[in-house]
């Protein structure tokens, strides 16, 4: 199926709404006016910049072991944030760990969004048996406590970056589908959809060009929240011993390894714990600011 253009130029209500929206500053463009969102954005950007700069920063290799430092793992001139139980530089592993989470989390959320939006659009637009199947599948998956679902999935398919993405998509897509379906159901009876149907637009065009863009407000917020959730999920899996296989630097895994020395050298677990909190807080504040902005319309 190809996305067909309207055979003759016609002013659709969707286009009119679009134009009106373009006049009023868009949600993302108004972002700087929300202090909460800007704090969140700077927390996220802090880690993004560090992650991007990791190869050029003067850091020890994240997996190099400094055996001499194991005896005195606290911070020193050679290791600003100290070393972990294996003598690896904590600062370097934090920054390289940011690369891991900032690569895996967005990939997982974007993939989950593609799957979830497809499910929600199909269920909301076609209704009938498609809706029944999609809703039933979503109900079944959403009835699992999330962590339990992650644990049994990863324990059976094995821990790897790809499998974490697969598990995250499986766990998140039904929730996204539910939101999109609800939004589509509220839009599908509106005139601009009827107009598009009258113009004989293909179903795909109606779903992707007419319906999906009109769902974007709540979805942008949900996207940020989900980035936070997935960051937590990746950390949780690492902490449970089901994360990325060692020696990949991974914040949850670092916290786990540090707990063995927690009563003597708490820094090994605390620094990665603060790292993960700051990143999740960033995503949450961003989502909060976006909600605030969309409410003030």
């Amino acid at each position, binding site marked *: 199926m190809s996305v067909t253009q309207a055979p003759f130029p016609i002013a659709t209500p969707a286009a009119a709404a679009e134009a009106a929206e373009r006049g009023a500053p868009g949600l993302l463009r108004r972002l700087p006016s929300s202090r909460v969102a800007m704090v969140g954005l700077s927390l996220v950007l802090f880690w993004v910049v560090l992650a991007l700069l990791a190869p050029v920063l003067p850091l020890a290799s994240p997996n190099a072991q400094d055996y001499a430092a194991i005896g005195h793992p606290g911070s020193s001139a050679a290791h600003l944030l100290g070393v972990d139980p294996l003598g690896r530089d904590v600062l370097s592993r934090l920054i390289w760990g940011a690369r891991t989470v900032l690569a895996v989390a967005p990939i997982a959320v974007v993939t989950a969004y593609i799957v979830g939006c497809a499910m929600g659009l199909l269920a909301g637009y076609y209704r009938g048996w498609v809706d029944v199947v999609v809703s039933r599948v979503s109900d079944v998956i959403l009835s699992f*406590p*999330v962590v339990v679902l992650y*644990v049994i999935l990863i324990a059976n398919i094995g821990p790897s970056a790809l499998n974490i993405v697969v598990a995250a998509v499986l766990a998140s897509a039904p929730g996204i589908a539910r939101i999109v379906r609800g939004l589509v159901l509220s839009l599908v009876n509106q005139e601009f959809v009827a107009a598009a149907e009258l113009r004989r637009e293909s179903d795909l065009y109606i779903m992707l060009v007419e319906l999906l863009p009109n769902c974007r407000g709540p979805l942008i917020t949900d996207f940020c929240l989900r980035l*936070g959730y997935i960051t937590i999920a990746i950390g949780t899996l690492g902490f449970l011993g089901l994360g990325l296989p060692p020696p990949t630097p991974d914040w949850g895994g670092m916290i786990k390894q540090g*707990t063995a020395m*927690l*009563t003597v050298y708490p820094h090994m677990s605390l620094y990665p714990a603060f790292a993960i909190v700051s990143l999740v807080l960033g995503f949450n504040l961003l989502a909060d600011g976006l909600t605030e902005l969309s409410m003030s319309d």
Partner: protein
Amino acid sequence: MLSYLTRRLLEVALTLLLASFVVFMVTEFSPGNVARRTLGPFATQEQVDILYNRLHLNDPLLVRYARWLGVLTGLQADPLQDPALGLNFTDPRGARYFGNFGYSTLYKAPVNDVLWDRLANTALLAGLAFAVIVPLSLLLGVIAGMRAGSGTDRIVSSLSIVMTSVPEFALGVMLVAVFVVLLHWLPGTSPLEREGGWPIAAQLVLPVATLAIYDAGYVARIVRSSMAEVMTRPYVRTAVLKGLPRRTVIVRHALRNAMIAPFTVILLQINWLIGGVVVTELVFGYPGFGRMLLDAALFGDISLIEAATLIALLVATTTQLASDIGYRLLDPQSRR
């Protein structure tokens, strides 16, 4: 209401059935794996092959699932408990009874001997956490939502957003660093035994706090927005304008309507708590259901994983049902 109840009950039953199939599929998809995991890493390939044939593991997945359901419901004897196999999987309850979850290869005992004590420990932990979450989140949410946009609101809202940004494993580590390492006020592990002289109550403080704080922040946010929304309603304005004291307006008019949305959310937190206990119990070495589930999953103890996941699903779906019914009872608009 009655027809609604029946319909919802049937839906829950169907969801549970489908979900149990998903669990079965995930754990027993590869039949060779089932025989291997049952016998452990030291069994010879020959032994694995014998078990594979005896258990008819080459049957299609659906047939094997039906057989598993048969064992669970007591319609069929558990083939693994057959003495002729020589596995020595003995269950004092017999090989055929309702609720037969099979034999745990990790604990070398029937699943029913392992499961329930740990579930009781977790119920204690989650129950206490819940007893903290509900009043704390209601208090925070109402205080903030009462005067949306005020200084108090900003402080409480920021606090609750920070609370929801600290995942259990990070929070547990931070709490241990402060209260155990720095202040020596509380024990860092909670084996629920009187070892090291710490009373059981002291052992429960940190796990409960870990579990409660993350969730309370989330619920408080929901309560806040619901409260803030209700405060803008015309009937609240009317109550204020007719000169009722602020206290009465909030307690009698606003609170009751503001609690409807959070009620469902609070009940749904039980689903989230089940996941939270897996992490929290690992942090504090708490002898509970979550850690058992994790150990079973890491070890590959098929029967125990299936049993534990099924219990978790049962709890999650029941609370979901309870929250739906409660919502209908509370919300005058859906009662009609």
